């Protein structure tokens, strides 16, 4: 009996560190993280709040990519396209149809869900690198399509659309930046919670089984085609919602915001944070938002380099950061934490 009960317990309940089980630690960290996130807007300037809102937006987009690439094993270099669709859905709804900003999120998500699903269907025939190339085409085509004459009336063409900055509701004593931060945080928490449940469900196991061994998964009766397409859809849903949030916090969309480079940034954030990880997406968001700025700062500090020349070195420094992280944490920052943990825990 006792053995049975023990067997059903997960390692997180058994392993101890400093008197607490790992599960308890997990809750403790979650509580600490949430408290920090909630307190943040009151301790820093509006500009920093805005930057952290961007972190959250990128984290949501990267989470979408993690679900697809990390958990399901499908490559995508085209997530900038779904981000763009989400952003433009929000912008067009707000600009032309005067829809309140919060209603644009579910719509942007659903449109991307179907766009992702439909793109996922034919893409199913493509494996690995070929799928990566197909999605690459999507990323390259999207900015061009947004400028297309027939849709120009809606998308604003090259000039893009400028939006109004939303004010906090119910006369809350918050600045606009603080409100946008909390709004994004709430949406983010909901989406992270959903992703966590998805991954730890039957469906989630099926999704991962397809990644690990597609033939075995099919043998066990998993409809791999459907699962892969829907994973693509869900992934696009996440990135689309992030795109809509991005449009709301930047208050501007233009085709040039959604180039292939953005898709690469998502991939970088995803790999750096830990691609088979849910909290890893947050590290990814932090990296994508802050490391370019830090690199720009550091480039000017390099001794013997003139200020003008330093402008060209930002991305070199960024590259060094990237290489460093890939060496130190080959499974991403979340993976690094996971790797370090066993050194401290005991049964």
């Amino acid at each position: 009996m006792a053995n049975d009960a023990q067997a059903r317990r997960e390692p997180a309940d058994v392993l101890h560190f400093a008197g607490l089980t790992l599960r308890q630690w997990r809750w403790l960290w979650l509580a600490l993280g949430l408290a920090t996130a909630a307190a943040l807007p009151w301790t820093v300037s509006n500009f920093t709040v805005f930057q952290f809102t961007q972190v959250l937006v990128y984290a949501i987009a990267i989470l979408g990519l993690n679900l697809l690439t990390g958990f399901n094993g499908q490559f995508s270099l085209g997530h900038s396209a779904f981000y763009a669709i989400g952003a433009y859905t929000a912008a067009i709804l707000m600009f032309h149809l005067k829809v309140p900003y919060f209603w644009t999120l579910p719509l942007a998500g659903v449109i991307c869900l179907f766009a992702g699903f439909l793109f996922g269907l034919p893409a199913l025939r493509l494996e690995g690198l070929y799928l990566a190339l197909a999605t690459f085409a999507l990323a390259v085509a999207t900015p061009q399509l947004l400028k297309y004459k027939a849709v120009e009336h809606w998308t604003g063409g090259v000039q893009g659309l400028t939006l109004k900055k939303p004010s906090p509701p119910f006369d809350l004593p918050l600045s606009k930046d603080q409100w946008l931060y909390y709004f994004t945080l709430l949406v983010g928490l909901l989406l992270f919670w959903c992703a966590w449940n998805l991954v730890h469900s039957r469906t989630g196991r099926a999704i991962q089984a397809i990644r690990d061994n597609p033939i075995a998964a099919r043998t066990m009766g998993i409809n791999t085609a459907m699962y892969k397409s829907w994973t693509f859809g869900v992934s696009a849903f996440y990135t689309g919602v992030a795109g809509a949030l991005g449009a709301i916090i930047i208050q501007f969309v233009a085709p040039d915001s959604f180039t292939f480079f953005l898709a690469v940034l998502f991939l970088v954030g995803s790999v750096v944070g830990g691609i088979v990880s849910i909290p890893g997406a947050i590290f990814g968001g932090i990296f994508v938002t802050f490391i370019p700025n830090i690199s720009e700062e550091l480039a000017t500090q390099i001794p013997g380099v003139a200020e003008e020349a330093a402008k060209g070195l930002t991305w070199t420094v960024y590259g060094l950061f990237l290489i460093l992280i890939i060496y130190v944490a080959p499974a991403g920052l979340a993976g690094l934490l996971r790797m370090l943990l066993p050194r401290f825990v005991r049964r």
Partner: protein
Amino acid sequence: MHRTFRLTLIGSAALALASGAALAQNKYGPGVTDKEIKIGNTNPYSGPASSYGTIGKAISAYFKMVNEQGGINGRQINFISLDDGYQPPKAKEQVRRLVEKDEVAALFQTLGTPTNSAIHEYMNEAKVPHLFVATGATKWGNPKEFPWTMGFQPTYQTFGRIAAAYILKNHPNAKIGILYQNDDYGKDYLHGLELGLGKDGYKKLVVSAQSYEVTDPTVDSQVVNLKASGADVFYNITIPKFAAQAIRKAHDIGWTQVHLLNDVSGSVSAVLKPAGLDKSQGIITAAYLKDPTDPTWKDDAEFKEWTAWMNKYYPDGDKASSFNVYGFTVAQLMEQTLKQAGNDLTRENIMKQAANLKNFRAKMLLPGIQVNTSPSDFYPVEQMQLQRFEGETWKLFGPIFNADGSTS
């Protein structure tokens, strides 16, 4: 006694005057101290438009010179220029950093139409001067709705009006054929021509208007159509790649005409050489800056000054690049604005002085072109001169045109 009293009186009056003057003198807004003025900027130092990045570097180099020579009214210019990669969201982030964290006194020469669009409302809400932006769109000179944003170079519409004035004067019975890029840039040029010719004139003179998409492979068929329409004046609104194609095709099918080429494609190396110099003879365009590769300026004092400055402060820069002339010229507008502001360096006064440039002569503008702004005129450079391609270089000709097409 009497004398002492008078002296005291004069002394105290002088003191009162001096202290009054001092009070009026040192009014500082954010980003200004007795020692420095912080000026913010974003440029595409990376990404697809990074070739423009040299403008930001040239401006940095210009302020380095200003600082070495003692600064402006004794204050050093702290020019903070950040990379936006030509990405609107990044531009917004960097600009918010400049305004909210670095607390710059003003933003100067932020580059790009999409990037400036992303920060346009923000700057006007934050009431921070958004000066002399590096884009030719017409919307930057709208002081009624956007009193904190000001353009710099002649707008795309200006060229259209100048072309119209030239046509009306020299070819009043012209049959105009137009080739234009189907976007805001192309339409701005088209609109300028329409304003210049007048609605009726436009209807009467324009016999064919052909558009192309920036994604099209060639414009050959449009050029053939224009020839077939019987047009004898070619108004060519194309970016460099298509400009070269159009010049070549028009020549090859034997369509001889008066050829007015928009100023963004005025580069000899990027447009006329690929098209073929023999096929480019007689093409007309407009300019407002001295072309550093034009031998006309070999002995010109301003050109020599520019060369010396390049050698000393920006030795890595390309001396054949007109972008480095552009940076050098526009930086003088900022310098002049701050000079005029004197010791009243509030954001309001900086904006007021930017809108109060009177017949200011920035070096390396074409001879006769001056900078003028007023509270209702937020277009600093509005004059251009026509030039015709002869042999291997552009030759300036005719008078200086104003933005409305009149000549001075």
